[in-house]
């Protein structure tokens, strides 16, 4: 092995975690959930870590759940429950919101299938 080979192997090994996070990881930079209350700065959560998130809006608490790489509204203090009925989001670019409680959630990814959703 030459010195160049050793450097190449070290670099390649060092790059492995970066490559993994970049292309494969359910969490990390590639797949996150952005949750926003009103026009406050958004909070970002990894889709890889299952958890429940409570967001305080003008009507009360909206509860969101991240489970197995998906996210949904579990409950929200609105009347129509459109947010809860919209179910699980799993693809980059997908989003839903509870307009009455001013809570929005969107999946952030490297190359979303759609740049915008018309509804």
């Amino acid at each position, binding site marked *: *092995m030459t010195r*160049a080979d050793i450097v190449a192997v070290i670099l390649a090994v060092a790059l492995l975690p970066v490559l993994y996070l970049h292309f494969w990881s359910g969490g990390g930079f590639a797949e996150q959930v952005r949750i926003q209350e009103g*026009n406050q700065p958004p909070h970002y959560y990894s889709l890889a870590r299952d958890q429940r998130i409570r967001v305080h809006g003008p009507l009360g608490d909206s509860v969101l759940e991240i489970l197995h790489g998906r996210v949904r509204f579990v409950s929200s203090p609105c009347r129509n429950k459109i947010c809860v009925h919209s179910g699980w989001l799993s693809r980059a670019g997908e989003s839903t919101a509870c307009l009455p409680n*001013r809570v929005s959630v969107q999946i952030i990814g490297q190359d979303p299938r759609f*740049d915008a959703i018309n*509804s």
Partner: protein
Amino acid sequence: MQAKTLLAPARRRGTASGLAVIALALALAGCGNRADSDYQRQFFAFGTLVDITIYGASTKLAQQASDQAERQFERMHRSWHAWHPSDLTRTNRLLATGKPFTAPASVLPLITLGKTLSDQSGGLFDPAIGRLLGLWGFESDQPPEGPPPDPKRIAALVARHPSMDDIHVDGSTVRCSNPAVQLDFGAYAKGYGVDQVIAGLRKLGIRNAIVNAGGDLRAIGRHGDRPWRIGIMRPRGPGVIASVKISGDQSVFTSGDYERYYMYKGKRYHHILDPRTGYPAWGTRSVTVIDRDGARADAAATALFVAGPKGWVATARRMGIHYVMLIDKHGIVHMNPAMAKRIHFETPTRPKVELSPPL
């Protein structure tokens, strides 16, 4: 000598591996840069969730542009609110007097545009039916709920034929000859607002952007070396039914019976009222229109929804609309051939499609 011949290929391999690693690192760095140039921001404004996507501008400029967009939407929302005190509610009080008055500068362009669009739609798009919308409970902060209004009150309002033709405009002076007229800009304010915001972004030098106001959007430019990719939600169901590619400058607007509605005794009462009957227009679930102009796409989506599966072709021709997808109450997709060429279904099974003659 032998050692040299053994070493030489190894050195070449080493150099090649080194170059490969450098190339890979550069490629990854390239990916990072591309992601950075996609700026996205969401905010609540205009009674909905607004999504701004900007491509290929500096973060500083993109922030400045989306700040400006937020201010514009907030200003328009305040000016055009149909039931909270606004320039529009003041205008409605003055219209009801029958006397001439100077229309507020924020309202006048929507009156003149509303008259043109209503005329082109044969009256199926009618921003003068604010009283009907109020009677049905669709002008309220609370979600509407049943029962439906007294049929006699609906019939009485329809019999008074409120229409944009009753509003007479001379410069900035406006007079209304029918006290039943009450303006509600709900069916095209979003389109007009998105147009204004796009114009503002362009003035700042933004060339590639999507302004998406609660699902209705206008896209300009492209996303780098590819067109913008727009998903169209399935009416009433989760997920995307179809997608369409957009580049240059086009708006995609959908009107649906699932946006504002209530169920009463198993029947759906939604906010898209037929001005001829005073009742929600039956027969259609959603209409998607693609047009350059957001306001026209917005108004046309409403007019074609009211026209329904049998009447939409004639109304689209009158309004000069070239791309339409209508999903009827049975889930059948009606499209003109030009739209069918652009629509890509994203569902596991292709829905039943009925093609219309060309528009």
